[in-house]
């Protein structure tokens, strides 16, 4: 099975202190460290596990700049067969539809049976996967937390619904799935692995290679644009319970029960 995973490089939320810049129109980016968007990493792991079971190749693609090569190498060290950097100045400022348009053009250059995305980017809006499926006219399922290949033409997939239950569905290939974290336990990528793929050339695709009409992507075509960031006003402070330990426990239980936390 030929699998494409669309991945994105994002500021690592566990290793950064995210703060707004002084102008208030972006976050402070000087000392940020980046990593692959976490759900995308689960998508790559899932693709690798599928390929181990049924054979095939895993390609990881990202739309971005030179700096984004870093995550492609990490996923290649993980086991992905190919990394592809989709980059062009004309792509700058694309909105989600623009990104989906670019990815659609890339998908059509290849022959993919299955396209995976993370459920959402940590700094995104969970839009690209669905849009890409619509543009390709492929079936789409979101929040997928298990995949079983049926006969090479269909997948049995599930998503978690209320109460930890699973809703099972079948979906025809080719299709696009957005992958939920927790679908697997991604393998660890050490520095040694990254060093070993450090010299493999990563192919790049631009607007020309993808035969994209520049007017359909980039800032000019964006219909959703970010105008501002703002920090919400601080709410009321927490309610402090005062009393003996036993009293506090009782009060706490009451409060939790009142909010529906205990049945």
């Amino acid at each position: 099975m030929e699998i494409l995973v669309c991945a994105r490089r994002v500021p690592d939320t566990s290793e950064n202190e995210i703060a707004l810049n002084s102008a208030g129109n972006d976050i402070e980016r000087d000392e940020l460290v980046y990593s692959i968007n976490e759900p995308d990493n689960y998508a790559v792991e899932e693709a690798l596990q599928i390929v181990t079971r049924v054979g095939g190749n895993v390609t990881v693609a990202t739309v971005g700049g030179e700096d984004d090569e870093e995550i492609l190498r990490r996923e290649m060290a993980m086991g992905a067969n190919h990394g592809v950097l989709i980059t062009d100045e004309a792509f700058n400022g694309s909105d989600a539809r623009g990104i989906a348009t670019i990815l659609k053009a890339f998908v059509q250059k290849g022959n993919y049976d299955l396209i995976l995305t993370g459920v959402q980017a940590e700094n995104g809006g969970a839009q690209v996967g669905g849009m890409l499926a619509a543009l390709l006219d492929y079936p789409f399922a979101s929040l997928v937390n298990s995949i079983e290949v049926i006969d090479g033409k269909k997948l049995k997939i599930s998503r978690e619904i209320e109460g930890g239950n699973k809703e099972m569905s079948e979906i025809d290939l080719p299709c696009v799935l957005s992958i939920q974290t927790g679908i697997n336990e991604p393998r660890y990528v050490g520095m040694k692995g990254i060093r070993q793929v450090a010299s493999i050339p990563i192919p790049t695709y631009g607007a020309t290679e993808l035969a994209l009409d520049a007017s359909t992507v980039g800032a000019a075509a964006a219909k959703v644009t970010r105008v501002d960031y703002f920090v919400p006003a601080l709410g009321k402070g927490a309610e402090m319970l005062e009393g003996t330990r036993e009293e506090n426990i009782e009060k706490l239980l009451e409060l939790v029960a009142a909010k529906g936390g205990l049945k």
Partner: protein
Amino acid sequence: MAGFQSNAQLTSWLTQGQVLFLLIHILGVACFAYIVAKRLEPLVRGQRDLRFDRPLVRLGKVLKFWLGQWKHPRYRVAGTLHILIFAGFILLAMRAFTVLIVGVSQNFVMPGLSGRAGPIYNTITDYAATIVFLCMAIAIVRRLVFKPARYAVPVRYGKAHTADAVFLLALIAILMVADSLFAAARAAAESQQGRPLEVLAVFSLPWMLQSALASTSIPILGRLYFSGYLLHEVTFYFLLCYRPFGIQFHVETSLLNVYFARLNRGTLKPVRWGISDEQLDQVKSFGVKTFEDFTWKHMLDFYSCADCGRCSDNCPANAAGRPLSPRFISIKARDYSFEHYPMFGHSGNGKPLVGSKESGAIYSEDEIWSCTTCGACEEECPLLVEYIDKIVDLRRGLIDDGNVPQSLQKPLKALESRGNPYGKMEKKRGDWANTKDFQQICQVKTLDKQNGGDTLYFADSITSYDDRMQSIGRATAKILDHVGEKFGILGAAERDSGHEVRRFGEETLFMALRDHNVDAIKASGVKRIVTADPHAYNALTHDYKDLPPVEHISQVVAREVKSGKIKFNPVEDEKNVYTYHDPCYLGRHNQIYDDPRSVLDAIPGLKRVEMSRSRDRSFCCGGGGLMLFYEPKEDERIGVKRVRMAAEAGANVIVTACPFCMVNLEDAIKVEGLEGKMTAIDLAELVDQQMTRETQAVA
């Protein structure tokens, strides 16, 4: 001698004794040689291990740990029994060879024993055989009746080893009886014929048998003499050839195992012996994944393990119910090698050692991650079997294949991008020293090319970033300031020492951290390094190379107490009882036991008690570094056990000298519900609290 012939001349079943015994010799030796050759096969296929250096030091180890049985008295009963058996075997070795040869050449006398030495040697060995026999009897009774807990085999590790142990003990007992029987029969016959040649040692086993046989007829004595000899012969060779199939193989391997033992404490084996850091990029696979990835010495360890259970008896992970028992790391690997290197047929299967049982793996991932590398097992092993290097090598294999618990992946990634496991910003690393309040009490310089100093205080990650542990950092800085040290920190330029990174098997990441730190330290131009973190201390002294000398703060304080620069006020509350908890990487791995204690004893009015497990038997707090992020399966926290030991010793203040011990002990005090009754304090904090300041001195 009518009716009583020498066994060599005896003709029975149409065979002359000489021929029969010669055949047994040849068959026995040939079998043993074949078995040993088969046992050597995996060792030949194993990895390199450079253990041929420093022969004198190694001989010293042999004298101390093999001939001197140094570790054995640590377990009184079993140790004493073993020393007696070992001494008996050593004494009896020459007798055994003489006896074997006499069957073929009746007049053989071992060179050196022809004169007066002969009877003396015989007397000694008569007693030796008796003592060994008695020890076997006691050992069998211990195994069957008293059943010391450490011999038990938990269900998950298979069936009890009692039958095998008793069988082997019984065989040795039979050997002793057989040896005594034919000596007794001969002596009885000689004495009946009125020409006693040999006087048996009074009250020895042969002597007692001789007394019992005093009135037996000569022909029966002749038959007993022959049967005793044959039994000795057969038992000897059976034992020789059976030993390589079980724990008794250590009789043969122990000498070599001790000779080739690891010489340097606190160190780890390289990824591959004989491969430099620069060449590591060319090494495809790191660590131990299949049995053949172990070094030959580590395989020899498996053969040498005597299944005595002392390692696991001292293992904190095992005590807390984690799925790790060092004893079975060895036993399972040994059983694996026996199974996959059989006496006949195809050898080796090359399957992974770590994984699910169904896949044929012998270790579980949890088992391998459960080790705190505290070294209690190695400290206890009478045969100097190594565990930490194996665990780390198995972890290197897991890391290489990406099999890392999810809880460890984030801290490892953060160490890669930020140089600390918490993912905190590099620029905040020195903040603990730069708060306004603290700067007024004690100015801590950040060292770089422009701002030099004599001494570097290497704080390491937990002390730099953890709110609670920063107090240890500030106390250390105040002590260095008090003794007039021109010191500073690296601040943002410091990275995690990588001590646990390396011990968790991530060698490449460790090397990156190490190289960064070495560059920063060299750029600062300092003449020496001080740290209050034993893990950093161990990394800087053993894992790094070519650095200025490194000291732990307890060593600095101990020295300055002697020099008089540090003086202490008496303790405020004389009712407090203190106990010192030895951090593994200060104590066992670096032998610093006395400095911290001497500091405590220099504080006037401080009452100190020792826990039953202290110094080289100290019980780990639960593990530091990345172990704080690992979520082991356990019945109880290791630290809780430790806190209880402190309470049992009658202490209410636990003094330690390691920030990780502090995390675990303070947590354990809360878990055990001892808040308000028990406290933990770092040695540096205590010194800072009790130090007589100059202003006070003047006043």
